[in-house]
């Protein structure tokens, strides 16, 4: 068995729903059955075979050769296996996934890792808005697992996050960590807007500082805390990899006291 490869034939004219192309959903399907799967999002039917040349046969290891910002819902709800996208991906990458690993060499659209419960998403480029965040109405965002972004993230990363770790190497768009319930967001670059707005609990580590904070965050002063050391060691040894705050002297802010106020933001001292 060799991994299943979808080679992009041409740039799609419509957005594609690729949520059906995961190990669990493709198990037991023949190449011709896979080629016949509908992936369109408009009245005009588009099938896998129209968009991709297929090779290989093992759905536990899927590769998209050539990506597109119109490749939506890649790895949605996946439970196991690996997906690699050589190029960009669209919205809702890895939404609600519970296990396995997705690697994207390019950039992705909004809502990557939305409400994911487990597994690993590794985005080498940039992530769009609402990384790990819930869709409308959902009460919690990311619930577990790891998201790693090599570039920058869009607005509201880690919104309503409840568990797991997000690490963004570059800058974060406005209002990162909004309404956080728990979990950890690490930003290597600078955070725009008002990070942590309405956060109840959880940890924001903003190694590159931030634009501003709400007055309902209170300065707790320098914080040379063991937990940071333990986290840094633990992350370095795991999927997250090296973190920007290792050995960095930090200051802690507590808030948002407009709500529960038990969240924390770490900044360089």
């Amino acid at each position, binding site marked *: 068995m060799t991994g299943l490869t979808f080679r992009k034939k041409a740039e799609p004219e419509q957005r594609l729903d690729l*949520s059906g192309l995961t190990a669990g959903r493709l198990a037991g399907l023949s190449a011709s059955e896979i080629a016949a799967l509908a992936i369109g999002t408009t009245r005009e039917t588009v099938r896998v075979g129209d968009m991709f040349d297929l090779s290989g046969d093992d759905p536990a290891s899927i590769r998209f050769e050539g990506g597109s910002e119109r490749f939506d819902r890649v790895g*949605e709800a996946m439970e196991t296996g690996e997906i690699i996208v050589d190029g960009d991906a669209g919205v809702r990458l890895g939404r*609600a996934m519970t296990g396995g690993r997705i690697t994207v060499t390019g950039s992705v659209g909004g809502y990557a890792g939305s409400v994911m419960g487990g597994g690993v998403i590794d985005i080498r480029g940039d992530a769009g808005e609402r990384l790990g965040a819930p869709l*409308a*109405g959902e*009460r919690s965002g990311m619930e577990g697992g790891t998201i790693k972004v090599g570039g920058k993230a869009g607005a509201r990363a880690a919104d309503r996050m409840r568990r797991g770790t997000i690490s963004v190497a570059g800058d974060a768009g406005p209002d990162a960590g909004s309404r956080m319930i728990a979990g950890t967001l690490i930003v290597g670059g600078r955070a725009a807007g008002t990070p942590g707005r309405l956060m109840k609990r959880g940890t924001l580590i903003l190694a590159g500082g931030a634009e501003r904070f709400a007055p309902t965050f209170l300065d707790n002063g320098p914080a040379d805390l063991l937990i940071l050391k333990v986290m840094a060691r633990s992350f370095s040894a795991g999927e997250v990899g090296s973190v920007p705050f290792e050995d960095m002297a930090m200051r802690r802010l507590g808030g948002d006291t407009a709500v529960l106020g038990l969240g924390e933001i770490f900044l360089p001292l």
Partner: protein
Amino acid sequence: MLTRLKNGHVVDPANDRDAVGDLFVKDGVVVAPPPSGTAADEEIDCSGLVVMAGAIDIHSHIAGGHVNTARLLLPEYHQAFQARPGLTSLSKVGWTTEETGLRYAEMGFTTVVEPAMAPTAALHAHLELADTPIIDKATLVVLGNDDLLMTMIREGESESAIADYVAWTVSSSRALGVKCINAGGSAAFKENVRKFDFDDVVPDYGVSSRQIVKTLQKAVGDLGIPHPLHVHCNNLGVPGDSSDSIEATIRAAEGDPLHLAHIQFYGYGTEGKRRFSSRGQQLAELVNAAPEVTVDIGQVMFGQTVTISSDELRQFAGRGQASPKKSVIFDHEANGGGVVPMNYKEKSFFNALQWAIGLELFLLIENPAQVFFTTDHPNGAPFTTYPDIFALLMDRGVRQRWLDALPKAVAKMTTLGEIEREYTLNEIATMTRAAPARLLGTTDRGHLGEGAVADIAIYRPGEDKTAMFGKAAYVLKDGELVVKDGSVVKRRYGRALTLRPEADKAMKSRLDRYFDEKYGIPARWLEVPEHAIGRTDPFKVVPCRS
């Protein structure tokens, strides 16, 4: 065109029919068998099938501002929103008017009553109903927390003046009856009162729940509105206080017709270490002893749902238990209301006992014409759970299996396990067809006698009652085949059944003045003109009793 439904087991308690035979339909109505030798244009072979009138749901929140707010509040339970293949009981209902009509029709329901239409939301409700396909619809208009009624009672205005006001409200809102929800309770809540009993008085008006209920009961009777006043009692869901409230309300019927809604939520005592117990048996006995009272159950089933109620006080109190944790509370003219999501869990002692109390009431109230089949959709459960409830009522073994899956502590608190009764097909037909039609005064339906509208549900009987009632073999609406093998084969629109009681002209000008002076809005905003509905012939008027 003459259609012959051939050789079915016709169950039509209104006409004392419970035997195999033919049924004939012509021009949308049931007709007498034609002279022998007349060939039918169309024949449906009903051999081995059960033929009943289309079912009538007297209490199901399917349209209006609060229902739409529930849709708005909970997008995450719409099936399209789920990570595949996740489905919740709510996503199975679907959220749209379209799905509501189709799912009801597939189960053989052909008339559904939206029971809580605020006068100010009448047009909105009727617009949604107009978009609800296949079934006929009706509404109950809500009074009892409105400034004008309470002012009229306080000022000691005449019974006829009050009846005129009620007549205007029913007529302009195109309702089929009058509902009273926690009479005075919502008004009191606006005054920051957080608990309201039957004999408590609304601040500023000095009128009690009892006075409001009695006044409306009288007006409804005097106007000849067929459906008795439909009452949602005080203290819904509060252990102890709920059962006290409903007992007081039943006693207050005093021999005149009164309908009490979703009484399951009032069958709660305070015994046991969790201070929560069943008073199902006592409540059933009270109902059995009060033949002038009719009730519906509001059965709780397990799973995600959402409570939708104009009982603003109760919904506010319940928002702490919201699951997921979000809710919308409305402060409207008169009732207001609230939308609070709820997830009834099999493993929860409280939820499991609620489930058992509902079934106790179904089974211990003796007369199937006195108790009606509801989940108070979607408050106790979505209406798509009905097939399961039919099975629970008709099969003691099914009940026992469900009971066995519940927390052990529940079995000790309910008599459900010992109740032997199993509903017969005839009793089911009484409860869901004959009796509701009588209760609503819609004599053209709920039975299969000559002249009845040909709303007919045909089921494939079997051991599995859930399957039987979940997907009708055939459904005819106004004589037209709309469902086959549980799937809709023809979309069409039904009508809204309404009353048109005449209000005194003076009342109309008084109300024009009242709404203009007090609220700064024209009274015509509360009227539902026929043109607004945008369907041909949208209403069907049901006569009042003379």
